């Protein structure tokens, strides 16, 4: 009985430890592009649950942001590899649909960042999800390039 109690205590303690302390910590500070070339505007922690089943779309985090004409924006994505072992896909939408995404389906290539030279001021949406809907731990950032080229 006493041994069983030990086992249960050990199991619970390990579970709490894994869930409580080994969890996804903020990655925002690690997801900032070169500050000599870019000015950080916004940073996002991306923490997503695992997809419940394969038929469902991967859990997605969405942020809305106003972008302005004449500004060159850079969107960067970062993944905490100790928690999430697949890439994160981040995309930019406007009210008409997809503007661009970090994942090129044709070449099956994931980009670490993309830049958007905005010519239409308005509300845009940034979305973040993890490939195959795995547990997501990462960060994203929105920055602007210092000189418009």
């Amino acid at each position: 009985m006493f041994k069983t109690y030990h086992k249960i205590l050990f199991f619970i303690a390990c579970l709490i430890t894994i869930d409580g302390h080994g969890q996804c910590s903020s990655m925002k500070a690690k997801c900032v592009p070169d500050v000599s070339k870019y000015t950080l505007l916004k940073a996002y922690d991306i923490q997503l649950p695992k997809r419940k089943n394969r038929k469902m779309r991967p859990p997605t985090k969405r942020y809305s942001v106003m972008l302005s004409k004449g500004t060159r924006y850079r969107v960067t994505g970062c993944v905490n590899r100790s928690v999430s072992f697949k890439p994160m896909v981040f995309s930019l939408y406007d009210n008409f649909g997809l503007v661009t995404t970090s994942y090129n389906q044709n070449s099956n290539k994931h980009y670490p960042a993309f830049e958007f030279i905005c010519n239409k001021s308005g509300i845009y949406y940034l979305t973040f999800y993890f490939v195959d809907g795995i547990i997501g731990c990462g960060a994203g950032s929105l920055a602007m390039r210092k000189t418009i080229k």
Partner: protein
Amino acid sequence: MKIQFYISVILVFLLSCGPSEDAKYFRNLLEIKENTLKPSVDFPREKLYEIIEQIPSPLEVSNLIKESGANYNEYMLNDVGYADDYNNKYTQAVNLGVYGTDLGYINIYSKYAASMLYMSSVQDLASQLRIGQFFDFSTISRLAANSENIDSILYISTAGFDNMSSYLRKQERDDVSVLMIVGGWIEAIYIITQVTRRYPTPKLIERIGEQKILLDDLLLIISLYQHDNYFNRIFNDLNILQSNFENVEIEYVVGEREMIEVDGILVVQDKNESIVRLDDKTLNNITQTIQQIRTFLVETDV
């Protein structure tokens, strides 16, 4: 088995260190909750923060002003001397946003001495609102000694405000979040309209006009707290501003986008275009209304 037992005891002991911090956090939270204004109607918090997040960083406006060739003008900014006189939650939160925008403007122009003064005011107000823990003033002071560190100072201040906003959201202090964002936004438009009076460039005028896009949503989140006198005053003032913006026309021209890869990064050139039109009279009306609203926001006797 003994090892398992000892590990369990250590883990349980370590975990038990948490609750005392948690208890302090929850005590603090309870106290703050009592002073938090509730919205008059049910409104999804997700939607509220979606609106808050879409307000652009004031750094964008400051950067545009600098690129226009306008000289640095500290006299436009809210006096740091007022910071101690903001003695209620409303003026503290609004002016935390105001000083935050001023700080961004100062940092974009690399004015180190002013940056330290404004950072100090930001920290004072943030501390009074119990969100002062996000600014590492000693690190910033150290960085300010070297003129090459302005990028780092900019980053640390942005990250500080960012973390502060996340914390407010976690604590459900939505009224403070709304006031901060309103203060910061009004100050940004105030600065750009003041600069445009002296250095009117098409880009600056266009940036003023495009604020029309945000105004409806901003009014929506302020209206949630309209049962409160202070919020009601801001709501009424922003309604006047909205009537000024009715004369701003925004046209959208559709085009194709071009994508290229540069150094392993995808670069998208937007060929869609927004064209903002506003005449001088509209610009003057907006400038005057913004000035009136801003005067009210930075007042200390409220």
